């Protein structure tokens, strides 16, 4: 198989315009003859479903929550980037493009990133038109803040609830289309497989989570916008239901999975409280605009703080190591996520960690409260401070916050070409579910941008192109009576029956926890050949144990959250192995992928452009066989790879 990214001809800045001109269109009166399935109602899926429906396509949209408004995009706090240059500080499409490619440590495809930067400005326009209440200045114009990895202020925000407001915008557009009958919404439905007919994606099999009924849905093409797979680590900032199921099943039906080992560990999360923990909570990166990150200079002081024998505030200035400011003076506390996370880990490994577990560093607002006043800080971060206090029991206006890195985002995902189409024709992937724009590390405030770019401004064109190429005669041809539906449905039922019939002794959650521990230890912030090889064996063994000893209570034909969990954990078990394999294959350090074998004396990541400037895309070839690696070479014309320095 040869991977063809279908990058349009011409200079970077003209590719998208040229492409839009050349691609096939579907005439407005023909659009209603096509049906499009959108799995996911987050920013990517919600925006795509609403936009395609507005254009006249018949859309069916699916989500596992009880309402499309609850997709996990809702939880994004900090903001969304756009190259508006409203601050007159030198921003431009080219700079946003460059920052994103560099931030991704030169492992993203230039053409896609350029398009993302290009459409970013229209996203803000669209959202404001929908009534998204972005923060404003007294003059009534839009306000901006800065985010990690950038030296301009290009992040738009709505208090600490930017994702919520953007999603409610997309949800309102979607709701309008549901009301008009142009979108049929399926809440509490989980997609469990993709159905291919003559090699093209023509439908899905879903389980109605309320009744347990297995349903078939046919369409002219399928879009997966099912979010990220961070929950493979068990503990992450993702919602409880976030999963890899849709992507993993698509992978097993022939879609290639790209860069699965590229995961992001976010530096500012609330530290783990203990082994009853079910999730981790992010403290928005925007806090790093005003908070200073430090640990005590000596281990003795750190120990006293851990044991509660010393107040952090009483550590004198000369006893504090503001390690990001020291190591990266030009970016300081706003160094990119991968770098900041690793620096915090190093400090804790050196015994300088605070928090009871020793796994925490301070994020201190003392100086900014003195400088700006408590009121100003409250206006900027009030809800985040409240949330911190609610979870930790400490008041961050008075004592420094404690933070520690946590799994947050997955750059890897289904491989897609420039049209966001996977290697299965007619199967598209958007938002966090694809791999396309962030390389080995995502910059803050860029995921919301990408989700909405894919949904509002890319898919409406490229899906039309695919449908146009298929021709109007093909519209609505495939129905659920096709034998292919029968076969896939049988597989889905078989898997559910098998899960319920094991009747072992260990719960799905317990298996999930054990899997997460392996992945976190060996495929987390630091990875090594030895560790990864061990992890692959451990995951395999655990998977076997799972299929012999999992206990799934309840029945198939009812609301059964444990059955849902078991299915997701089973997929994570398969996927976890793929992730470790990818990390093992990538014998270099880049972005969030840090191989201990490849670092400078100062502990900075060392990339190997000669051998690894490619996208690693994996093809499933069978249950008991190792997947096949395909390489998409990355060619950099405009953003020449250099050592990524934030010093």
């Amino acid at each position: 198989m040869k991977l063809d990214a279908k990058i349009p001809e011409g200079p970077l800045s003209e590719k998208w315009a040229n492409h839009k001109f050349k691609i096939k269109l579907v005439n407005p009166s023909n659009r209603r003859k096509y049906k499009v399935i959108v799995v996911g109602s987050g920013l990517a899926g919600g925006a795509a479903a609403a936009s395609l429906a507005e254009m006249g396509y018949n859309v069916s949209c699916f989500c596992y929550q009880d309402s499309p408004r609850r997709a996990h995009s809702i939880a994004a706090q900090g903001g969304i980037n756009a190259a508006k240059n409203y601050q007159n500080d030198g921003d431009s499409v080219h700079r946003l493009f460059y920052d994103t490619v560099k931030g991704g440590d030169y492992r993203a495809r230039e053409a896609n990133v350029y398009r993302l930067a290009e459409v970013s400005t229209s996203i803000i326009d669209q959202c404001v038109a929908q009534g998204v209440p972005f923060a404003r200045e007294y003059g009534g114009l839009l306000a901006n803040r800065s985010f990690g990895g950038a030296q301009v202020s290009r992040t738009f925000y709505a208090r600490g609830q930017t994702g919520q407001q953007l999603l409610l915008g997309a949800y309102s557009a979607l709701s309008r289309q549901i009301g008009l009958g142009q979108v049929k919404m399926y809440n509490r439905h989980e997609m469990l497989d993709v159905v291919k007919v003559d090699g093209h994606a023509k439908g899905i099999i879903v389980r109605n989570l309320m009744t347990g009924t297995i349903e078939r849905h046919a369409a002219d093409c399928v879009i997966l916008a099912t979010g990220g797979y961070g929950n493979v680590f068990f503990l992450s900032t993702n919602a409880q239901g976030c999963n890899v199921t849709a992507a993993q099943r698509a992978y097993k039906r022939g879609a290639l999975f790209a860069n699965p080992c590229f995961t992001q560990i976010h530096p500012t999360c609330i530290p783990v409280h203990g082994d009853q923990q079910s999730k981790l909570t992010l403290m928005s990166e925007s806090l790093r605009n005003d908070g200073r990150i430090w640990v005590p200079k000596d281990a003795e002081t750190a120990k006293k703080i851990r044991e509660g024998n010393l107040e952090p505030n009483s550590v004198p200035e000369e006893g504090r190591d503001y390690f990001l400011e020291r190591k990266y003076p030009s970016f300081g506390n706003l160094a990119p996520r991968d770098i900041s996370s690793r620096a915090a880990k190093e400090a804790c490994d050196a015994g300088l960690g605070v928090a009871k577990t020793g796994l925490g560093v301070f994020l201190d607002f003392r100086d900014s409260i003195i400088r700006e006043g408590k009121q100003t800080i409250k206006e900027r971060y009030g809800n985040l401070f409240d949330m911190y206090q609610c979870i930790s029991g400490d008041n961050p206006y008075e004592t420094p916050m404690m933070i520690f890195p946590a799994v947050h985002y997955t750059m890897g995902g289904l491989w897609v070409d420039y049209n966001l189409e996977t290697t299965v024709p007619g199967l598209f992937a958007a938002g966090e579910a694809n791999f396309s724009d962030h390389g080995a590390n995502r910059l803050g405030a860029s995921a919301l941008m990408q989700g909405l770019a894919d949904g509002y401004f890319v898919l409406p064109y490229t899906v039309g192109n695919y449908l146009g190429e298929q021709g109007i005669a093909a519209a609505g041809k495939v129905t659920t009576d096709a034998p292919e539906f029968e076969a896939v449905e049988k597989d889905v039922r078989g898997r559910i029956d098998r899960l319920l019939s094991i009747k072992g002794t260990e719960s799905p959650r317990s298996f999930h926890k054990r899997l997460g521990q392996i992945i976190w230890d060996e495929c987390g912030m630091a990875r090594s050949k030895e560790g990864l090889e061990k992890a692959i064996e451990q995951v395999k063994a655990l998977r076997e144990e799972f299929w012999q000893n999992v206990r799934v209570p309840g029945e198939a034909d009812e609301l059964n959250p444990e059955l849902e969990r078991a299915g997701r954990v089973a997929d994570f078990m398969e996927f976890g192995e793929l992730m470790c394999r990818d990390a093992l294959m990538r014998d270099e350090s880049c972005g969030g992928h840090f191989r201990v074998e490849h670092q400078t004396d100062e502990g900075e990541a060392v990339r190997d452009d000669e051998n690894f400037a490619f996208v690693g895309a994996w093809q499933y070839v069978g249950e008991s066989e190792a997947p096949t690696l395909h390489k998409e070479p990355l060619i950099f014309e405009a953003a020449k790879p250099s050592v990524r320095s934030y010093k």
Partner: protein
Amino acid sequence: MKLTLKVWRQKNAQTKGRLETYVLDSVSKDSSFLEMLDILNEQLIADGEVPIAFDHDCREGICGACSLTINGIPHGPDRATTACQLHMRRFKDGETITIEPWRAKPFPVIKDLVTDRSAFDDIMQAGGFITARTGSAIDANEIAIPKDDSDYAMDAAACIGCGACVAACKNASAMLFTSAKVAHLNSLPQGKPEKDRRVLAMVGAMDEAGFGSCTNYGECSAVCPKEISLDMIAQMNRDYLTAKVKTFFSQKSA
């Protein structure tokens, strides 16, 4: 901590439910309320029983999925806090806690603590939007919006659609939910063109879904995890009256 839990168990919408009693030991005071339920569920699975179904997803107070009535109060005892953000340090060792689903006719129980809140989506579909076709927008800074207006819209838009307001209201009124969306959109210049249609359609959908009327108990705002203010209801009532009067006259002149 050791706790006694009285939990509403109901197999499905057709069967009758009842409170069951469970005892839990060794819950950490740093755990969240839902983590405490996880522990109980793990114990039930180990004992060969069916675990308790409850809605939850983000576990950080923003998705609006969690929906537990704790000791009679939607989302429990803490002000401005969803059930998922409630922490066990709030309770005493040895305490008995009662956990029930939302109690409101328009939100029927699906199973145990899970209810069907799709009536909220119906209200949104009737008019909770600004018609803005993708790609047709003007530059975002073309219209200046006074910061106070924008802040007010944001206060209203903070609603997470959990339904606690309905569950707390004796009449099962959805006025706070509906008015928050109306206030958000009607207060912005972009929302003005559809102002009247919106309020009429949304109030209509609310009545049709069987939500009760508002008799100013104020319980809704008291339990709201996002502290949506009762002013939103007053604002919606004004918008509704204006719209009604306008349609009355436009029908007359037509």
